[in-house]
Every structure is written in structure tokens, then in C-alpha cells.
């Protein structure tokens, strides 16, 4: 994978994580609001959904790590003594 494509993929994954995080924030506030109003029905589904979103975020994070490692290994066999060309 080239560096440019790798950075594009990483940026896309970060954007996706950010979107998932916004959904998770909304989920938490809606669940809290509902709980404080005395409604406990949505609490379990919300916790499950929040866990799924966390798993998706963790998966995307691992994806970013893997892409990053691939780019580094492709472009910098010895990263310690070469120019800083890998995505940061």
C-alpha cells in the first residue's frame, strides 16, 4: 500500500470513529435522560448498542494500526535511521 492511499484509509477510519462516537454520545445522553425520568426499558438495549459501537471503534483502531504498520514496513525497513516519511 502506498503512503497516500494509506493516509486516506486512516483518515477515513478516523472519520468513521468520530461519527460512531457522536452516535454513542447521543445514546448515552438519551439513556440517561430516560433513566432519570423513571423509564428503564431502553437501558439494556442502549448498553448493548454502546458495546457494539465500542467494538467497532476498537476494530477501526486496530485497522489504523495495521495500515500504519504496513506503510512503515513498506517504506522504512529501518525506520530509526531513515527520513520521517510514514504517516503520523
Amino acid at each position, binding site marked *: 500500500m502506498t503512503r497516500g492511499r494509506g*493516509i486516506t484509509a*486512516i*483518515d477515513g*477510519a*478516523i472519520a468513521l*470513529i*468520530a461519527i*460512531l*462516537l457522536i452516535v*454513542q*454520545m447521543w*445514546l*448515552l445522553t438519551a*439513556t*440517561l*435522560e430516560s*433513566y432519570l*425520568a*423513571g*423509564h*428503564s426499558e431502553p*437501558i*439494556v438495549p*442502549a*448498553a448493548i448498542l*454502546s*458495546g457494539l*459501537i*465500542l467494538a467497532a*471503534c*476498537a476494530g*477501526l*483502531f486496530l485497522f*489504523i*494500526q495495521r495500515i*500504519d504498520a504496513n506503510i512503515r514496513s513498506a517504506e522504512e525497513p529501518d525506520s*530509526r*535511521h*531513515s*527520513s*520521517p516519511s510514514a*504517516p*503520523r
Partner: protein
Amino acid sequence: MGVRGLKRTSTQDPVWRDEFSAQSATERYVTRRQFSKFLVLTSLGMFVGNLWILVRSWFAAKPSFTPQPVSTAAEIPVGGVKLFSYPTPDDPCILIRRSTDTFVAYSQKCTHLSCAVYYAREQNRLECPCHEGYFSIEDGSVLQGPPPRPLPRVTLKREGNDILATGVEI
């Protein structure tokens, strides 16, 4: 995200320069890896928050209500109201006599921002003056406005001339 303007002067820099950055610009720089890690940790925090709510709801005590006399039938004319507190003094409620034998009671706190609702007799509905939230007198459901939920309904029981509050239906 690249470190602009930061160039290594020589490929012969000692290893410690890579390990211990001496440039403040590099120290302040947030890499994609760090940013994505921060986002994932924030997601973990959101999940922990949801779990916390779940645990709280599991261990929350079920509310118990004791019957409490709130009024007598003769005290309120048809179309009249009486304010009372139930189940605690901090829970204002409104009792409405809809007809000779029909009484209804609701929490007086608007479900939007807890303003006190009042009975609008001409429109036959409960109204919140703060943001014009209207509630049905039939079941407390929202007719109009920003309130997200119906008004909690106070269950009533009539014993002779006395009207007792026996519980709250959310």
C-alpha cells in the same frame, strides 16, 4: 497531519533525538495514532457510562407508595382543581374534578423543564406556561410543545367522601 517545517538536519542524528524530542513543536503535535487512540478511549468512557446506568437501574429500589388522603369530593367543584404533594412534599401534583364522579391527578412538573403546569378549563387541557407545552387531561399525554414525555399520573381511590392518592404511574 505532517510535521511541517521540521526537518532533520542530518541523517547522522543520534538515536536519542528520535526517542526524546527536544523540539516543543514536536511535543505538541498530535499524531493520527494518538488521536484515534483518544477517540477509542472516549468511546470506552461512553460505554462505561451506559454500563453505570445499567448497574444503577438494577440496584435501584422500587418506589413504594403509601395511600394518602389529598382531598374530599365536596372540597372541589366540577371543573375545579386542588394542588397537593405526593408522594413526597417535593412532588407537586394537581387534582382536577372533571365531572361529578371523575377525578384525575397528575404531577404538576412539566416533563420538559419542570415548570408548574396548570389546568386551562376553556381548552380542557393542562398547559405549561414556560414553553407552551400542552398535555391531555385524559391521560396526560403531550398534545403540543417541547415536553418529551407524558405527565406522570397519580392514581386515585375514592373512599366515601375522601379521595386518596395511591401511586404514581410514569
